[in-house]
């Protein structure tokens, strides 16, 4: 008998073991829900699967009686637009500032302490300021995401630039590269896959800020809907929405990961 640490499940068993927790939680939920509904058929806390399907069907497949919109999809597209804008802007700012401050000591001396201070500001604490300055529209929500994750991305990019072997930078100089050429031909292409890594890590924080902003001031969005129907204890809407948000996060993460592997095969080969 081999030691436990040396035993590996084969592919089918691995897949089965991986899905097992999901199945268990599903079964436990159904049992608990049934038990509660048996006692009180109007119970709202653990709605049955069928009532959740009905609720989602109403939001996703039928136009709203008030506005004629398909609320589920409107919510999804508004949230994803805000999230995409916030992450995109953060990525661009993070990439530019991270590279410049990682590569140029004078800029780093100038920016690094400031960035450390900025990154320590709790973003939600400045949310009221954003609402006052940018109004309650789209801008303040996008800015909140950007403020929340940009400092992390800048600092991460800066450290990734500084982790590039000094040998490479010296070699580029002996091949006649200027600072500019080193940045665009040596540094930039090598930190792009690392930028995708940083974005994947900040995805969770980005959702947090998005939902917080939507909960406080919005007229649509996934976070808005959850907080709106909370007043009616509409767990049959909240639970599917949470699952949907989780699925979207998973999907975005998966897309970023696949994109990185496709675009930067040399980077992922180094990992192995």
């Amino acid at each position, binding site marked *: 008998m081999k030691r436990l640490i040396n035993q590996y499940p084969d592919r089918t068993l691995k897949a089965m073991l991986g899905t097992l927790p999901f199945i268990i939680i599903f079964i436990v939920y159904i049992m608990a829900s049934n038990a509660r509904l048996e006692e009180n058929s109007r119970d709202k806390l653990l709605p049955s699967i069928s009532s959740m399907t009905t609720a989602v069907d109403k939001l996703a497949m039928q136009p709203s009686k008030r506005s004629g919109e398909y609320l589920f999809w409107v919510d999804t597209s508004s949230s994803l637009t805000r999230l995409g804008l916030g992450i995109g802007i953060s990525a661009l700012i993070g990439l530019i500032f991270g590279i410049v401050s990682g590569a140029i000591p004078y800029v780093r001396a100038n920016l690094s302490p400031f960035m450390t201070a900025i990154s320590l500001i709790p973003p939600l604490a400045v949310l009221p300021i954003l609402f006052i300055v940018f109004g309650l529209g789209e801008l303040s929500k996008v800015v909140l995401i950007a403020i929340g994750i940009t400092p992390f991305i800048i600092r991460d990019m800066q450290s990734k630039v500084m982790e590039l*072997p000094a*040998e*490479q930078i*010296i*070699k*580029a*100089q*002996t*091949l*006649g*590269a*200027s600072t*500019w*050429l080193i940045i*665009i*031909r*040596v540094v930039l*292409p*090598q930190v792009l896959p690392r930028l995708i890594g940083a974005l994947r890590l900040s995805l969770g924080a980005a959702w947090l800020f998005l939902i917080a902003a939507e909960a406080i001031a919005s007229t649509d969005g996934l976070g808005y809907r959850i907080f709106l129907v909370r007043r009616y204890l509409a767990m049959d809407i909240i639970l599917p929405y949470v699952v949907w948000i989780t699925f979207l996060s998973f999907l975005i993460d998966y897309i970023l990961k696949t994109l990185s592997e496709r675009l*930067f*095969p*040399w*980077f992922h*080969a*180094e990992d192995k």
Partner: protein
Amino acid sequence: MAIIEAKNLWKEYGNNVVLEQVNARVEEGEFITVVGTSGCGKTTFLKMLLGIEQLTRGELLLDGKKFPDEPGEDRGIVFQKYSVFPHLTVLENTMLAAEFEQAPLLGKLFGSKKKMAESDAIEILHSVGLNHALEHYPHELSGGMQQRLAIAQALMKKPRILLLDEPFGALDPGIRADMHVLIKTLWKKSGITIFMITHDLEEGFYLGTRLWVFDKIRLDAQNANAYGACITYDIPVGKTDASTFDDIDNSLDMSRKVLLD
């Protein structure tokens, strides 16, 4: 005129003396192998030739003028590792020097200029035996192949001086012998000046035209860094014999023991 000249050169970090009283003249086209115990300043000397370390006393001259204080295109380098760019293919790695020179804004060539740079690069890759792997990334190459690429990449710039920092230290003996043949052929063909650092005394004994040994003449067993190293042997290769080899080997062994104990 000598291409490189060191006059009473010293290098100190605070109280630690790394190099002292280094005097040397190097003519264009020489192939100098540098050996020495680790911590004997040979890498520091190479870094000064690169321009990433500065001397603290004395003079170091390039063509009779003060040495530049940053790396430049007249001095190529091959390190033991990390010399090639992992995100570029073999061909792209080699073309880089041409692209840096001809495209200062984008760093990328297009059209006929690109074709020209490609054919130049392929010619050099051919001479190091890498023409079959043009589209490979460095991680797909063996250690020896990566070093061949690093050499090709440096030669593309046509430097006057080529600095080699233990370039074959991580390679297997058989492959190392192949690389010796390669570097010797390339040197004879191009006529550039080569400095090669190695910890392998035998390598230094037959590879170049001149052998330098960096060692400490004065040794303080209580304080290893009180005295610096200088060039203790400066002998033309070819006029060396077994007894010289043993002499050098013994003296290096001595200082290794004192320094490490």
